[in-house]
């Protein structure tokens, strides 16, 4: 009887340890949660890829250092989430002057300069504080998405589903937070301290 009890307790203890490590100490249960927790614990630089915006200007992600940058990943044909993200950025542009807003398209097959331009116009991106961009070189896309931890999957209807979130880079260009875009007031509260520092 004691042996059975001992064995059952051992199993329970081992399972607790395994579950603890699988959930970062019972904090996260999804890959998205783990991605956000990892960034909070250990901020890191995104790869210094070259982007091209809606006006055809090329710039490196590096060149934005010294500013607080908010990045969303989108594709311009997206009827749902990206459109909502666009609206969020439009409101952020008014609420948080001084931040750089960057909408990066991962659909580089389809999104050329004209498509970026159209997305920018329909959401009110000015091309200065808010730029809609895409990686210039196709081979840069993978490392950029991997660096941010974004997974894009085809939805079977010619579109995509992807982690919808706002990625916050601090003044040193480090990815320090990954935030929900809803509710907006919480997002603004989260970003504001980084603007002061």
């Amino acid at each position, binding site marked *: *009887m004691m*042996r*059975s009890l001992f*064995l*059952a307790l*051992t*199993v*329970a203890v081992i*399972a607790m340890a*395994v*579950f603890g490590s*699988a*959930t970062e100490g019972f904090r*996260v*249960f*999804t*890959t*998205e*949660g*783990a991605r956000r927790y990892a960034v909070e614990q250990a901020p890191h630089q995104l790869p210094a890829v070259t982007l091209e915006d809606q006006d055809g200007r090329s710039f490196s992600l590096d060149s934005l250092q010294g500013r607080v940058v908010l990045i969303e990943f989108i594709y311009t044909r997206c009827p749902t989430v990206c459109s909502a993200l666009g609206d969020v950025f439009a409101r952020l542009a008014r609420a948080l002057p001084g931040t750089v807003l960057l909408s990066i398209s991962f659909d580089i097959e389809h999104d050329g300069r004209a498509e970026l331009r159209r997305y920018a116009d329909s959401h009110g991106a000015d091309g200065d504080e808010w730029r809609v961009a895409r990686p210039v070189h196709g081979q840069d896309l993978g490392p950029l998405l991997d660096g941010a931890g974004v*997974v894009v*999957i085809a*939805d*079977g209807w010619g579109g995509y*589903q992807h*982690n*919808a979130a706002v990625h916050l880079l601090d003044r040193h260009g480090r990815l320090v937070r990954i935030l929900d875009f809803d509710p907006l007031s919480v997002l603004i509260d989260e970003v504001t301290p980084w603007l002061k520092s």
Partner: protein
Amino acid sequence: MAEILNLIPSFRRIAMGAGLFLVLAAPSLREVLEQDMTRHMLIQLPFLVLAGWLLIPAAAASCRFVVIWDRFGIAGILTANLAAAYWMLPRSLDNAIALPVFEIAKFISLPLLVGVPLGCCWPRMPMLGKGFVMANVVSMLGIAGWLYLAAPVRVCVFYLSDQQEAVGRLLLCLAGAISLAVLFCAFVGFRPSAARTA
């Protein structure tokens, strides 16, 4: 000696278990099953468990070592329960797709830590224990199904939101079906032991 002989499984059973495992491990079938959340969770995972169940001989349940160390089969059922719960974490499911190490761990742990202990310990579990486990399985499936249906976001980065909803609905159906089966057994009175001796 008889005990050791009893431990040798019937050839057919072990061949079926090993065959099932190998078929599931075939790269083309793996890809097909893992492409879709429903197929991954409700076909591949249960069949891996079944492969483990088949691999263990019926006599193992009464083997002396097993009886001494796990008198009512509680530790075994606990192991099976917790190992299965691990693969119900959305993050584990994603990891199995993204990282080969986790995929291998899945293919080892589900037969070995869920199927084998289930086959070994379930027959020895007292009625009270069985009832407890069944009640938990039904409520766990129900809650998981409801969560998947109600979640405003995708829980797995590798699966689409409509697949998640389909899994949610199927989990709820499964919980309902198990409840009905239990009720049927309790009131209509299907007794496996009676059926065997008849």
